C-alpha cells in the first residue's frame, strides 16, 4: 500500500515545531526517525494531513553528561549509542540491550526518543529507562518551559505516555551509574531483532542484589517493575522472587504466546538475569 497524501513541514527549532503542531492540531504528527511512523503511513493505519519533521532540531541532539546525569537527546539514533564512551561509562545497561534493538538498518534511522515516545510495551528502551530510574524531559504548547517526568510516571499504558498530543520529548536523563554497577539485559524473541516475547532490563549496585531494579517488558501494557519481586530478591533470594513474579505478573497473550507461557518465560528470564547480575562484574 501507499501512504495517503500529507504535507511535509520542516521545523527548525522546538518553538517552531510546537507552533506548527498548534497550527495543525490533531491532523499533524511529529516525525523523527520515522521507523515506526512510516510503516503505519504505508499501511494507511495513520493518515495525518501533515507531518512535522523534527529531525533537524538542534535542541534534541547529542549525548552528554550534566550534573551526574547522562543526557541523551531524543533524536539520538539507536546506532549512535554503539561505542559511545559516555554511555559505556555511565549507563552500560543500554549497551547490553542495544543488540536486541531491531536490525542495523533500523538502528541507523530510528531514534532513542522515538522509541520512548512510542512506548511499545515490548521495546527495550522504555524498560531500560525504568530500570535506570531515568527522567523524561518534555515540552509542549501549554507547559511552562520544560516538564520532567520520572520513568515510573511516564509510561501510562499501551502506547500511552505522559506526552500529551502536542508534546515533544526533548531528552532522557539517566543518573550516572557508579563504576562496578551490575547490569543484565535479556530477552526472548523468536527471531533475532524481533520485538521481545518477554524481556528484562536489570541493574544492581553489587552482587548482593539488595537494591536490584528489575524492569520487565512484553509482560504488560507498559514496562513494569514489581516491588514485591525486588523485595523478595533482596530478602529471600531468587526463588522467592520468581514466586512473587508469578503472583504479580499478568501478561497479555500475544498471537503466539498465552499469558501462562509469558509468565513462565518471565520467570526464566528473572532467574537468568539474577545469575547475570551475580556473575563477574
Amino acid at each position, binding site marked *: *500500500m*501507499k*501512504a*495517503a*497524501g500529507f504535507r511535509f513541514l520542516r521545523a527548525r527549532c522546538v518553538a517552531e515545531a510546537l507552533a506548527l503542531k498548534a497550527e495543525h492540531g490533531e491532523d499533524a504528527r511529529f516525525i523523527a526517525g520515522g521507523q515506526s511512523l512510516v*510503516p503505519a503511513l504505508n*499501511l*494507511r493505519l495513520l493518515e495525518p494531513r501533515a507531518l512535522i519533521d523534527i529531525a533537524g532540531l538542534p535542541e534534541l541532539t547529542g549525548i552528554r553528561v550534566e550534573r551526574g546525569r547522562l543526557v541523551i537527546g531524543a533524536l539520538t539514533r539507536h546506532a549512535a549509542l554503539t561505542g559511545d564512551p559516555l554511555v559505556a561509562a555511565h549507563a552500560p545497561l543500554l549497551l547490553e540491550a542495544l543488540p536486541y534493538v531491531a536490525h542495523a538498518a533500523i538502528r541507523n534511522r530510528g531514534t532513542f526518543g522515538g522509541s520512548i515516545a512510542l512506548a511499545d510495551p515490548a521495546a527495550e528502551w522504555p524498560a531500560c529507562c525504568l530500570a535506570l530510574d531515568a527522567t523524561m524531559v518534555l515540552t509542549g504548547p501549554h507547559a511552562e518551559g520544560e516538564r520532567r517526568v520520572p520513568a515510573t510516571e511516564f509510561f501510562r499504558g499501551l502506547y500511552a505516555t505522559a506526552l500529551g498530543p502536542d508534546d515533544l520529548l526533548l531528552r532522557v536523563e539517566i543518573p550516572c551509574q557508579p563504576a562496578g554497577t551490575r547490569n543484565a539485559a535479556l530477552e*526472548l524473541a*523468536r*527471531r*533475532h*531483532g*524481533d520485538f521481545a*516475547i518477554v524481556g528484562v532490563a536489570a541493574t544492581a549496585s553489587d552482587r548482593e542484589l539488595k537494591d536490584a531494579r528489575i524492569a520487565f517488558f512484553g509482560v504488560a501494557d507498559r514496562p513494569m517493575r514489581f516491588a514485591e519481586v525486588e523485595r523478595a530478591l533482596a530478602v529471600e533470594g531468587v526463588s522467592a522472587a520468581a514466586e512473587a513474579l508469578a503472583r504479580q505478573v499478568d501478561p497479555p497473550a500475544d*498471537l*503466539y*504466546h*498465552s499469558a*501462562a*507461557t509469558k509468565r*513462565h*518465560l518471565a520467570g*526464566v528470564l528473572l532467574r537468568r538475569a539474577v545469575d547475570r547480575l551475580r556473575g563477574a562484574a
Partner: protein
Amino acid sequence: MNRILREAADTPAIGAAVPRPNGRRLLEGRGRYVDDIALPRMAHVAFLRSPHAHARILAIRAETARGMPGVLDVVTGQDLAETVQPFAGLLVHFKGMKSAQQRCIAVDRAAWQGEPVAAVVAETRRQAEDAAARIEVEYEPLPAVGSLAAAAEPGGMIAQPELGDNVCFTREVEGGDWDRAMAQADLVVERSFRFPRHTGVCPEGRSVIGDWNPADRRLTVHISHQAPHMIQDCYARLLGLSESDVRVVCPDVGGSYGIKTHVYGDELATCALSMRIGRPVKFVADRLESFLSDIHNRDHAVTAKLAVKRDGTILALGYEGTQAIGPYSVYPRTSVVEGNQIANICGQWYRLQGYRAKVRALFTNLAPYSNYRAVGHPVAVGVTEGLVDAAARQIGMDPAEIRRRNLLRDEDFPLQTPSGMKFEGMSHHRCLDTVLRMMDYDSLRADQAEARRRGVYRGIGLASMIEITNPSAMFYGVGGARISAQDGCTVRLEPQGGIMVLHGCGEQGQGTETIFAQVVADAVGVPMGRVRLVTGDTDATPYGGGTWASRGAGVGGEAAWQAGRALRKSILDLAATIHQRDAAQLDIRGGIVVDAATGEQVTDLAEVGRVAYFRPDTLGGVRPELSVTRHYLPTQYAFAFTNGILACHLEVDPDTGFMKLLKFWAVEDCGKVLNPLLVEEQMRGAIVQGIGPTLLEECLYDERGQMLNGSMVDYLVPMAAEMPDMEVAHIETPTRESAIGAKGAGEAGTAGAPAAIMNALNDALSPFGAELTEMPFTPERILRALGKS
C-alpha cells in the same frame, strides 16, 4: 592453424557446477521484473477487498471514487460479469469433486476476507488506492467457516451454501493386504498430526500488466508466473478471445514456489480492465493483499497409524487426513492435489504389506488454497517418518536401524506400491548410509548422551522420503485440464555460429535456463557460452507446461537434449555436404566440426551458418534446416520419483521451549545431476522453506475467518540468524526413460525438513517423555508438552 580436438568436448557442461550466466544481472540491479516494465499510457489498478470472510454485498457506492483525481475507471464484479467468464478448478479424474464458480471480482457475495469486490484504475497506484478507500460497500455479514474444525463440524456452517455441504473431494485408497498385515502386528503406533496453513510469501508480490491493444485486437500479458502457456489458454477462454489473441510474457520472476501457477481473479480482472479502457493496466499485489489473496496451503489434520513387529518390521500404514481449502477449488489445478498426492505417496518408500488412506478436502471461508512447493509431501513424509520414529522409540530401536530394516531396497525396483504408484529405481539405503557417514551419526549420539548429563538436550532426526517429479499427462491432462505435461524446445544455429534456444520452461531463479544451456551445449557440441536462451514468451517458445512440479530439468532438459542432438545432426549433415565428407565420420567439439577419428578441424559453425543462410544456392539442391524443435513427454512412468534422506541436529532449551537448529544434512537422488551447484542450492532453499512452517510460519485466523497475522511483522518467515548450515550430497539413479536421466530436484528439502525437525525435537525431548506432532513447534507448544505452560 586448425585446432585438433580429440575429446567430445573440452569439458562437458552437463554435470558441472556452472554458475548461472543470467544471475549476473540480478547482482547488479538489472533484473527486469513486471514492476520494472513501464508502458506508454500505463494505468494502475487497486482492488478493494472484502473485510468479511463471508458477506452479502448489498450495495457498492462509487460515485465519490469516480470523481477522485486521476481515476479512469471503477468497476464492481457485476461490471465484469458479462465479459469475464467464471471459473473453478474441477478435474474429472478427481471423482466426485465439486466447487462453486468463482468470479474475478465478487458478485453479490464475498466468500473470503480479501476477495476483490471492486477495482479502481487510475493514473498512479497511489491515486487508485486513494479512490478505493472512498468506495462505500454495504455488507451483510454471513456466518463464516473460519477453520478446519468448523468446516468438519457435522451440521455446522457451510462455506458455499449452494453446495449443500463443505466437502470438496474425498478419496480412499487401499493396497496390499491390510487385514493380514495388521494381524501380524505386535503393536500399532497411532498419532495425530497437525500441519499448519501457511503461504508462499514470494518476495515479489503477484504482478501483472494487461496490455490490450484495440488496434491489433491483441492482449499482451506481462505476468510474474510459472506457466505462460497455461495463462494464455485460460485467459483467452475466460476473456472470450482466441488463443492467438493473447500473448503471455513472463520476465524475471521474484520467487514463485508454486504460488504463481494459478489463475487469480485480480490478475484476470486487470486484463479485463485494460480491455475496458484500451490502455495498459498494471497490478502489483502489495504484501497485505498477498497474505489475503495468494494461495494458502497445507492445513491438514491427520490421524495415522503404523503396524510393526517387535523386531522392527513395518507392516502397514493407515492414514486419515482432512485439509481445509478455501471457498473455491482454485482454477485450473484445483485445491485437492495436495490430499490426493498424500494418498498416493504416504509411506510408500517402506516395504509395506498393507496400506489404507482416506483424504478429504473441505471448503472454508479462508483464503484460496492450492499447490505450493512440495505439494502434499511435507504431510506424507511428516506422518510417515513421525510414525516410524514413534515406533522405534516404543520398541527401543535406533531410528537409523528401523529404517535400514524397512526402506525399499535397490533390488525391489521396479515396483508398484500398495497405493498404485510405479517406482523405477531408488537408492534409499545408499542415501541412509551416506547421511549417517556425513553426520558421523555415532559421534552425534555420543555427544547427545554426554550433553544430556550436563542438562543440554540435543536431538537427532532422520527423514527418508520420496518426491514426485517429472509429471506425465496423468497429473492434470488426464483430468481434462489444459495444462501441458509435455514441453518443447527449439534450437537454432545462428549465422555467426551461436546457438539460440527457445524453451517452454522458464526461469524463476532455479537455474532452468542454465541447465538448458548446459544440456544444449553438450548435445550440439559447443561451449556453453555460445548458447543463448529465450524463455517465458508464448510468441517465441514452443508450447509447454512451464516450470513447476520439479519438471524443468527432467522434462524440459530432455526436450532440450533431443532438440540439441537433432540440430547437431543437421549441422553435421550440412558440413558433410559442404566438405564432401561422410557425416558419420564428423563430430562437433567445442563448436568446431572435426574429423571424428583424427580430431582435425573440418569447418566451424560460423562457416556452416554462413553457407546455410547466405549461400544455400551452392549446396546443389540441399535445403539446410538449422532450426529444430523437439517435444518431450514422459510416458512410461506417471512420475519420476526421486528419493533422499534429511537429517537434522538441534538443541532444545527446556526452560524456554526455544529450539536451535544446529545443522542439516541432505542426501538426494535426483537421477543424473545436471548441475550440482544448482541442485544443492535448490535443496538448501527448499529445506529452509520446510523449516518455516515447522517452526515459525502459520496463517492464523479467528473463528470468523479474519486473518490475524497478515503482515510480515506478525507472519514469521525464516531469517538468516536462526537458519542452520546444510550439507548436501548426491546419489545418482538416473531415470532410463530419458536420455539425460535427470529427475527433479526442487522440492525435496521442503518435503523432508518438517519430519526431520519433528523427529529431532522428539528425540531431544525423549528424556522428558514429551512428544510433539502439531506444527509449528512454537516455544509455547514445546513448553506445554513439557508441562510448563
